[in-house]
């Protein structure tokens, strides 16, 4: 069965080859006549090359016609019109409907959309962080910021804490590697760290709330250890840090 198939297919191929050969020879003869050469001087060798061109050129190749309702409309001419030849299967035969207006693109090509638009606050954050970094006292924080930090007891947050918090955040961020696969994921790890008055970490950081991803938790511990010593805190003692992978937390 397979053998007879192979034979008949071989015959088909041979027939096709002969057809191409005939086209090729004819073309050469015509060319030679046109250029005034005697037909006898024609060399058969370049057939192969010609056959290759036939396959790769849209007009000469029989193949693309066999592609289902083929080839999507050619993209406007990036240098090589040959590209069009690729047998694209997905195009329908009918004329393309007119393009709709460009879909409204989400702000950035991220895998997930930002959970909440926090752009304005982010900018003020960046500014105050930069000021904090150069030692410039940041302006009184916006109420929204105070609210976002909060205190477990609901008591007002001291300006000393806010100034330190900004410095600590910048410092820790510089030591925290968040691989692309963790970014924008709903990962959140809380740790407690004992700091001395100079900001050095005493003992082991303690994870009080895991993210559910042990590699993410490991990265958090790694980053806080790398960050030691932190900027000197308002007072020595145990401090709590929450690491969130999703910037729109």
């Amino acid at each position: 069965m397979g053998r007879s198939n192979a034979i008949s297919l071989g015959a088909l191929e041979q027939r096709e080859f002969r057809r191409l050969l005939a086209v090729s020879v004819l073309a050469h003869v015509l060319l030679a006549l046109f250029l005034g050469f005697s037909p006898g001087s024609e060399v058969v060798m370049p057939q192969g090359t010609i056959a290759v061109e036939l396959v790769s050129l849209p007009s000469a190749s029989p193949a693309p016609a066999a592609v289902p309702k083929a080839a999507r409309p050619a993209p406007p001419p990036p240098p090589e019109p040959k590209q069009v030849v690729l047998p694209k299967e997905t195009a329908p035969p009918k004329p393309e409907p007119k393009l709709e207006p460009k879909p409204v693109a989400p702000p950035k090509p991220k895998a997930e959309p930002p959970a909440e638009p926090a752009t304005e606050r982010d900018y003020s954050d960046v500014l105050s962080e930069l000021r904090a970094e150069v030692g410039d006292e940041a302006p009184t924080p916006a109420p929204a910021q105070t609210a976002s930090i909060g205190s477990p007891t609901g008591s007002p947050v001291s300006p000393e804490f806010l100034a330190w918090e900004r410095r600590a955040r910048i410092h820790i961020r510089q030591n925290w590697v968040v691989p692309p696969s963790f970014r924008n994921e709903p990962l959140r790890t809380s740790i407690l760290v004992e700091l001395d008055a100079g900001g050095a970490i005493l003992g082991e950081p303690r994870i009080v709330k895991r993210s559910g991803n042990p590699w993410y938790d490991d990265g958090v511990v790694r980053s806080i250890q790398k960050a030691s010593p932190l900027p000197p805190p308002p007072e020595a003692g145990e401090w709590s840090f929450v690491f969130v992978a999703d910037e729109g937390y």
Partner: protein
Amino acid sequence: MRRARWFAQLALLVLAGASRAGAEDRPSVVIDPGQARSYGVAVQRFADDSASAGARRADAFREQIVRGLEYSSVFRSIDAKAFLGPATTVSLDEAESVVCSDWSSIGADALVEGTLRTDTSQLVVEFRAWDSTRCTKLLRKRYTQPAQADVASLARRIADDIVAAFIGVRGVSATEIAFVSNRSGNQEISVMNADGSNARAATANRSINTFPSWSPSGESILYTSFRYANRPLLFVSTRGHGKPGRVLSRLGDRAGVYRGVFAPTGPKLAVAMSAGEAAEIFSVSLDGKDLKRLTNNRAIDVSPTWSPDASHIAFVSDRSGSPQIYVMNADGGDQRRLTFQGSYNSNPAWSPDGRWIAYETRLEGQFDIWLIDPTGSTNVPLVSHPRSDEGPSWAPNARKLAFSSTRRGRADIYVIDLSGDNLLRLTENAGDNTNPSWGPFPR
């Protein structure tokens, strides 16, 4: 009863309040990621017992590990000239202590050390990966392979292991990408390493070959070829077998089979095949049995892609008047339209983690690559460029995608992180390189 419950709740609240105030009466510092950073990694030259191979084998091995680690976008390699500790592994003896501060002080979050040993006709490679900040060993592993087998791919495998030890997701530097190239003058299937190295031809039949699709084992590539009778038919090329095999020959030659894709879970295919006037999606086993028609209408249904558990198939249909992405159950049931934005959406690719379907969408005459989740609730751009970006294919870890782009003029294969970062061009030869198909993890 109700009062008792009320008291219990009050007591719980008081207790919770008391414990929280007792543990810490201070606000938390919230840290978010900020700008992208990578882990510094110090890769030692592995100690090599083979005098004949000398330093060259160990140097080449180190270089491949470094390449593999950096390909992950997770690590950046630290120049060996900056090492305070030994540049070549002294010993993997557990009693031998690693001076972690030597490594952490030069910015190395990770240290990789290892040995290469030729044992009769076997190459034995053993390595350890350290978290030098916390001074803990994350991984120790040994690989044994025939001495003459490819050493570079083993080195990249080790790199991928180290990535997994750090982030829980295996790297893909040891995987391969099949693609269509016309650099020879014909449209043939080629295969290259995931970083673009070692590109080689997989077909050479001087016909038109396209739409490569890997088998789940990575041993075979299924593709569409016009080699017989100028009809699109499916073939499969298998490693170590010179001659490609015809697939679905029992269906005869008359029907064109435009494209086939392996199911991720077994030797089953989804194929786009002519049925009367239209193209329809079928499922069929590799030997041509159990043919089942899944779509049945006058529209064109093509480009099937399986969900990772093979329970669903996404595909393209123009039944609404324009090509759009649809999803159906693997038995053809519950067909629903997924994309409603844009007038031309095609070439869907379901991510191996099941979370996304990447596809190409036409905007202003050119194609961009977008991601939509299988429920259709999130639809976001991944690759946008004034020139065309087409044919997305997922890395097996679902963290990178390959696609073809005409941004340099002719089409080339690129890879990009799911985050949209780290765009890397893989092909640079003349000709057009299109239709990438990312292979599975090596076995």
